[in-house]
Structure formats: C-alpha cells, structure tokens
C-alpha cells in the first residue's frame, strides 16, 4: 500500500501534464503543434515500418562508439597524467583550453574535413567527451591514499597490476562522475552532428521531417530523443549503483550500519 502511494505521489503530475497536452492539442488548429494523438500515431507507424528503428540504431551506435573511445582514451591519458606531476603541470592549460571549446563549434570543422558518414560523428563525440573524463581521472588518481601508494611501491607491485588493481579501482568513483558529465554532452553532440549533415540518425529524421513540413514526425523525433536521453541517464544510474556499490558501503559505514539497523526494526 505504502509503495503504491509513493509511486502515485511521483507519477500524478507527469500524467496530468501529458493528459493536458493530449486534450488541449486535440482541438488545436495550429499547424505547428499537431495533436499528441497524431504524434503518437505517426511514431508507432514509423516504428512498425522500421524507418525509425534504423535511425535510432544509427544514432545510438555512434553515441556508444564515441563515448566508448572517450572513456578508454580518457582513463589511460588521465592515469598517465595523474601519475606524472611534471607532465600534468605542463599540459594543464592545454587540457583546460580544449575542455572550454564549445563542442558544437567543432561539428562543422570535423564534418567538413572528414565528410558525412558516421566516422566523423563518432570522432566528434569522442573528442567532446574525452576532456571531462581526463580531468576527473586525474583528480581520481591524485586522490589515491599515499599509504596505499607506498604499500604498492614497497611490495614492488608490477606496473600493470598497480594500474589495474590499485589506481583504477581507487579512482573509479571519480571516473564514473566524469562519464556522467560526458553522457549528456555526447547526446547533444550526437544530435547537433546529425542535424548538421547526415544521412541517417534521429537528428536527420527530425530535420528531414520538418523540411518536408511533416510536423507530427518532427515532434515524434524530438520526443524520441528526449526519451533516449532519459533512458540513457537512468541506465547509467543503475550501472553506477552496481559498479560503485562497494564504494558507497565503504565510504559511508555509519549510514550503511544505520540503514541495516533500521531495516531490522
């Protein structure tokens, strides 16, 4: 009963808002704001014909490829820079400069240089996402406890083991936080690159529909992008909670203990 009540408490406002949109748009005469029922109808139709599914797959593929490259490169570069203070100090202004370039300004340059296909899009997403991950990984590596580091040195832990078993786990919370920053950037850059020049992808679907004046399709695409962004962020939350469960437990022993005791009550 209590659970049902809690879910209702969180759900009533979104449901009311969607209902209001549905009812108000149903009788609206505006060409630009088609009825929500029509948007949904179009979305279902395009999904059934397989058009929209292919676009979504193309977009998500680029997104994951770009983000994946950014994560691997970001972690490796971040750990190297975090471990070598001199190098870090030297390239620090460069990293902060690249981090500050508005990523959407890169889109015309990279696509203009590399052409339309999906490789330049993956590259743009990777380039935009790598900087926050590098910066966070550096922070993570630097926050490794000196005691742990000395122990690893004293026992002559081999470099590879030191990297995978000491540095990586202890900087993982920071790295995950960096990826969390990078995720919405990746979605925005993905959409911008597809709106700029593409042959497939949700952004292309939206652009094509609106240039053919198919407003219902354009709205359907925009809603779909929103759902995609939301789903990715929720999935990442789940993933983060699983990946870092040990961290929350070890860093907050009192909270964990009180949680278990309160459960016992």
């Amino acid at each position, binding site marked *: 009963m209590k659970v049902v009540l809690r879910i209702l*408490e969180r759900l009533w406002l979104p449901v009311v808002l969607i209902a209001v949109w549905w009812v108000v748009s149903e009788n609206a005469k505006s060409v630009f704001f088609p009825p929500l029922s029509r948007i949904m109808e179009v979305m279902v139709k395009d999904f059934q014909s397989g058009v929209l599914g292919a676009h979504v797959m193309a977009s998500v593929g680029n997104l994951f490829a770009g983000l994946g490259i950014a994560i691997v490169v970001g972690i490796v570069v971040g750990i190297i820079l975090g471990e070598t203070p001199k190098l870090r100090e030297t390239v620090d202004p460069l990293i902060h*400069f690249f981090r500050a*370039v*508005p990523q959407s*300004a*890169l889109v015309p340059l990279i696509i203009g240089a590399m052409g339309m296909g999906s490789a330049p899009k993956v590259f743009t997403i990777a380039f935009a996402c790598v900087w926050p991950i590098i910066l966070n990984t550096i922070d993570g590596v630097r926050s490794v406890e000196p005691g742990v580091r000395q122990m690893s040195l004293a026992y002559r832990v081999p470099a590879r083991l030191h990297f995978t078993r000491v540095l990586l786990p202890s900087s993982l919370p920071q790295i995950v936080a960096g990826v969390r920053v990078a995720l919405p950037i990746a979605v925005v850059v993905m959409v911008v690159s597809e709106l700029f020049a593409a042959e497939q992808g949700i952004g292309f679907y939206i652009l094509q529909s609106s240039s053919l004046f198919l407003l219902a399709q354009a709205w359907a695409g925009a809603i779909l992008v*929103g759902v995609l*962004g939301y789903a990715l962020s*929720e999935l990442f939350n789940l993933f983060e909670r699983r990946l870092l469960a040990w961290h929350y437990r070890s860093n907050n022993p009192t909270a964990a203990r009180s949680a278990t005791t309160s459960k016992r009550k």
Partner: protein
Amino acid sequence: MKSRTQQTSPERGRRSSRRQAAARGSKAAVVVRRIVAIALLLVLWQVAVLTGIAPGLTPRVDRVALALIEILGRADFWLALLQTVSAALTGVAIATVVGVTIGLLVGSIPAAGRAVGLILDFGRSFPTIALLPVLILVIGANWRMEVLVVSLAAVWPILVQSLYGAQQMTSAASEMTRSYRIPPLLKFRRVLLPSALPMISTGIRIAVAISILVAVGVEVLSQTPGLGRLITLAQGGGRWDLAFAYLFLIGCFGWGVTALLARAEGRLLRWNRLGEK
C-alpha cells in the same frame, strides 16, 4: 591571511620569503615548460602540414596566426561575439528567474518536490537542440529563437539546484520562520534565497557553460547571426585558416568565461566558506 601570520617574527618571515622565492622559481619553471609544450605542439602541427601527414585541409600555423590578426581587426567578428554573448546571457537570465522561483517554491513543499522528480529528470536529460528544426519553422532563425532555445536548455540545472537548495534548508531555520510568523515574501527573500544561494550559484555556473554551447550550436545549425555562423561560413567558403582561428577564439572565450565564473562564485560565496571554518 597566511602570509600575515607568518610575518609575526622576523626569523619566520625570512624563512617564508626564502620558501616563497623557491616556490616562485619552480612556478617560473612550470610556466617555461608550459610555453615549450605549446610551442612544441604548434611546431608538430606545422611540420605535419608541411610534410603532408595531416589531413589535406588542415591549415598551416602561420596562416592561422595571420587569420587571427585579420579577424581581430574586423568589425563582423566583434559583432558576432556580441550577438552570441547577448543571446547566451539573456537566455541564462530568463532561465535564472524562472528556475530559481519555481525551484525554491517547489523545493519548500515536500509533496511538490516528489511530484516534479520525474519531470526534472526528463527535462535535464532532454537535448533541447533537437527541437531546433521545429522552432525554426515556428519562430524563424533569429535572435529570439536562439534565446528561447538557450533558456530552455539552461533552466534545468538552475531549477534542480534551487530545488535541492530549498530542500536542504535546516528544519531549525524553517521552524523559526514559522514560529516568528515571518511573512512568506520576507521568508523567501531573506531565509530561503540566501540559504539556497551556494547551490543556485553552482546551477548558474553550469547553465552559463551550457548556454554558450547551445548558442554556438544554434548558430552553427540555423545560420542565426553569431560566432557559430562565422565558423560555418568560413568552413563552407574553404577558408580553413579563418575557421581554425575562429575556433581558437571561441575556445579562449569559453575558457575566459569559465575562469571568470569560478572567481565570481568564490567572491560571492566567501561568507559561506567562512562559516565552514
């Protein structure tokens, strides 16, 4: 603060000045190393272009430098900068007013806070720029549309941070305002707003970064006047030296804004950190 306490005895003062000199020496070394690194990068770039390793369209460093000087003397660059900045800042201003008001109101009512949770999560992860083609049809590719897109994108971090800020208010403070029957407007201005200010300012800082990203993105895509449009025009016209110079200037601009905001936040919230000590 620290240096003043160290100056109390002459012995200590001398030692600290020697230490400061050493620190200054290593600082100078860092600066030299940084300049060398940047120079090395530029030389590598130049060599890569001259030997043909770099992609065919990459401009030479000296060409970009010349383009940079050319741009800085041109009125259309400064006009474009003004257009981008004004659109971004107007959008953030609107987003701040809307976001802080709604965030604080909703955050001070627990039931409302729970009801908007899903909407906030959705809005936060929605890439507003996806609405651009539709908005171009409805409003047209102009400054007003750009401001609208910027404020739609920038409102979420401010809203979320204000909401958290209001929820974080200690129960003692809220009980006191109730027992003294402090009028709602005064409570809003003197209790709720200041206690949520550190959170709000973080929200605004995120929003400003987003606003520049979105403003440039809108200009790149819709040919609305501004820096983004200049880049697309330069690239479309085959003037890669100009395009790279613009990109460099936009990077400098973004960097300057980030640095400025970090400083402004530090100044504005000095009282907050004083309380922590």
